[in-house]
């Protein structure tokens, strides 16, 4: 090496040369030695027995890798975008918490280290009872002013700590932030710490929408064990306290996005023009206040060759009927007459799924076929048992154990490829307000589920969706809920 080269530092992040060795997704401590490949201790430890928990409120670990993450960096920051604080703005009952959670879900899925900071949580932690005056952005009493200031300081401290000590890249700060001078002050403090600030103001100018949203908001943790009517009345009082001193955003020098009627209208002021900011706006364009549930059902025969596409056999027909009956029964138990007329059914373009959906089409439901939903291509690994794989592709087998989410067997797709392919459909699901039944291969369900439940990509390949169950995920403001519905009368 000549002297000119001396000043070149070894790249801190291994290039694709080392990526090819499949260790780019792993922390240094778990990087296997090139030659010690068969050390049993090094094998990937299957994760904890899977429970249906929405992991969106779990803080992400130092080495968390997300489903759609294209690459990782030592600093944990992607796209050279630096640190960003997204500050929610808006009176109560404008879906701020809901929005902050779903945005966090999307950003984490993209691979950005994002965390939520709800002022409400901090308040609940500090004190049980607060006077109404507290909710007024400009309270009159000194006591209320002091409490407000204290809580805000705590939140800002947490946000900065996340950037400085936890390798955070995006903090989402959820509070009313209804006073212009306070917003300017907040932006100033954060900018002093090299944090970019983007305000998202959620507004509603449709009274009906507001009414239904107040009813939803009155189910928040503040109103556990309350009578529903009383909770709504109390919440309305809170809304009116804020309304009288609330100042809408028009600070020309700040970057803000007005998000009106949950994405119907958007106004962007001083767009920051970096990849992440525009990606956030992109998400906002697609985001709706989600209602309803997504159901997932497996197609009947999963042992088929990837390339073959035979029609449904008699057993498959029967299976289709059973899924149909299970769905009808489930809706009836929820108090519906039968399947709702706006239930959409999504399938892949494989006959095993399209023909399975025929029974839903027959009763007049909308069935759409999505080529993106074709299962993960297993490539040359198709149909091989673990032992055979070990024999035939020893090196690949080892890599696969280390990182089953990103590793591709020869000619195969990996889960990561599938996740990127499914992004448009994930966006589309975000736009829908009716129920959807997804009929697909297990690999596709794993990826959808991983997004909706904020699973880590080390868990996704191990998620189990047996053919004997329909999995239901219900959208909820605070966290999504997954339940399993048994398909009755199936012969194992």
């Amino acid at each position, binding site marked *: 090496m000549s002297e000119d080269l001396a000043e070149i530092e070894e790249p801190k992040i291994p290039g694709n040369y080392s990526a090819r060795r499949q260790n780019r997704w792993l922390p240094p401590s778990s990087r296997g030695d090139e030659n010690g490949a068969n050390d049993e201790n090094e094998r990937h430890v299957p994760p904890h027995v899977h429970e249906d928990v929405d992991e969106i409120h779990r803080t992400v670990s130092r080495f968390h890798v997300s489903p759609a993450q294209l690459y990782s960096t030592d600093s944990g920051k992607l796209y050279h975008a630096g640190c960003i604080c997204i500050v929610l703005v808006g009176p109560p009952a404008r879906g701020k918490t809901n929005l902050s959670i779903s945005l966090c879900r999307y950003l984490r899925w993209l691979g950005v280290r994002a965390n939520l900071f709800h002022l409400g949580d901090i308040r609940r932690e500090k004190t049980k009872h607060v006077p109404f005056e507290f909710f007024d952005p400009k309270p009159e009493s000194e006591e209320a002013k002091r409490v407000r200031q204290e809580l805000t300081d705590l939140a800002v401290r947490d946000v900065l700590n996340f950037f400085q000590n936890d390798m955070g890249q995006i903090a989402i700060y959820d509070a009313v932030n209804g006073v212009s001078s306070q917003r300017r002050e907040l932006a100033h403090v954060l900018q002093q710490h090299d944090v970019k600030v983007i305000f998202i103001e959620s507004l509603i100018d449709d009274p009906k929408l507001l009414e239904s949203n107040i009813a939803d908001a009155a189910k928040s943790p503040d109103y556990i064990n309350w009578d529903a009517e009383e909770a709504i009345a109390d919440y309305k009082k809170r809304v009116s306290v804020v309304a009288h001193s609330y100042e809408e955003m028009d600070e020309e020098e700040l970057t803000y996005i007005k998000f009106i009627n949950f994405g119907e209208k958007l106004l962007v002021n001083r767009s920051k023009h970096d990849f992440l900011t*525009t990606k956030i706006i992109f998400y906002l364009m697609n985001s709706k206040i989600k209602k309803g549930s997504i159901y997932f059902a497996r197609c009947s025969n999963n042992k088929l060759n990837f390339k073959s596409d035979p029609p449904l056999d008699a057993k498959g027909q029967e299976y289709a009927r059973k899924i149909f009956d299970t769905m009808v029964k489930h809706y009836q138990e929820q108090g519906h007459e039968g399947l709702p007329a706006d239930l959409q059914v999504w399938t892949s373009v494989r006959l095993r799924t399209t023909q399975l959906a025929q029974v839903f089409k027959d009763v007049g439901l909308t069935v759409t076929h999505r080529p993106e939903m074709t299962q993960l291509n297993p490539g040359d690994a198709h149909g091989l048992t673990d032992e055979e794989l070990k024999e035939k592709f020893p090196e690949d087998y080892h890599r696969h154990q280390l990182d089953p989410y990103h590793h591709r067997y020869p000619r195969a797709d990996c889960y990561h490829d599938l996740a990127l392919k499914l992004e448009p459909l994930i966006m589309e699901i975000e736009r829908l307000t009716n129920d959807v039944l997804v009929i697909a291969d297990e690999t596709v369900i794993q990826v959808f589920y991983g997004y909706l439940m904020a699973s880590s990509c080390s868990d996704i390949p191990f998620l189990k969706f047996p053919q004997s169950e329909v999995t239901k995920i219900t959208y909820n403001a605070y966290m999504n809920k997954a339940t399993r519905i048994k398909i009755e009368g199936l012969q194992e």
Partner: protein
Amino acid sequence: MPLYTVSHVDNLRVCVVMVGLPARGKSFISHKIVRYLSWLSIKTRVFNVSSYRREEYREQPSADFFNPNNEESKVIREQANIDAIKDVIKWMNEEEGCVAILDGSNVTKRKRAMVAQILRDNRVEPLFLESFCDDEAIVKSNIMDINSTSPDYAGKPPGYALEDILTKIKYYETHYEPMDLVDEKELSFIKLINVNSQIIINKIESYLESRIAYYIMNLHIKPRYIWLSRHGESQYNLEGKIGGDADLSERGMKYARRLKDLVQKYVPNHDKLEVWTSTLRRTQQTAQFLPNPKKQWKALDELDAGSCDGLTYEEIAQRFPEDFAARDENKFEYRYRGGESYRDVIQRLEPIIMELENQENVLVITHQAVLRCIYAYFMNSPQEKSPWMSIPLHTLIRLEPRAYGTNVTRIKANIPAVSTYKEKGTSKLGESQNSAHVMAGEVITSDVANQ
């Protein structure tokens, strides 16, 4: 299968309808959208309303043609608009077009309502895109650009275009009704105010529309250059091996030194230039003598050749004969065992393209396959062609994105290097004999000598 298969691709068709006064960058934005969506494998085309005017008014009509009181020309202009829309629908029906861009002015509410109606009647979703600008400096610089690139003013003196366009703008201004959230709240529209200082987005109804809006938000229309270079010749290049993370060869190091002089001589505002490299040694070594701020992007790393990494093409042909043939057959889609395809590279380059659209002064030092993808984006090259493009070593490439296309200039450093170009059907390396694979534009051989 396209990279971003648009959901409902079978039944979702969008027509982007441009709205705005002349010299608001409408044609520029139109062509950009085509470039971006085509790059992502979505079939897109521009329909320029003025080209549907009757023959004698097609080229260089005088400004009086746009006088709102000129009844005859009004009829001609309306007819042109309708003919263009008919063609949009025909193209969508017969050639399975997915996104059309109607590049006209559509300055009145009445006209926009009519356009929306016709499109909806034909199951095409209208998405209006208004470029609103009252900043005179921006308008003026747009006019100068139109003057030098638009076919309407070919061969005319600069003053002529300015005068003519200003008169045209005056005529249009008399009946211009900007889009608003009151009367047109039911239309899907994107409104850009003074380029991007404010953006209003109304009723985006589909993923595809949101994708278009997302892209437009990243655009700016300030004139600029984008500078590209491959890394200097590496040890692996000398040995004919692909991939790896090798150091520069002696000649490669020479190029790295000369690059500093080339940048000084040819890049205006080179003190404000930002340099992007991949995370591989050879690009960082190439950038090492440049005094400019540097960013390393993982996304700029070379196409991952998987199991073939570190092999020569001859070795690949020998060890993986089927793969070798499959790759030649469809180079865009072919994915190396355990590695990447060109399509995969485009996927990971998207953030880079978005950032490049944002930036004003960047030099990107990266690798052959990655440069092919970036070049394909700016030159709008088709997928079957772009992986075969010959991108020479030791050459500084200048791209100048303009309203009607991108100008390319190659500045040769005059330092010899091996060829890393592999023609279809052979494992031998050597520059392409096929002129279709040679980059467009002018070639300058630099006379900058090593100090």
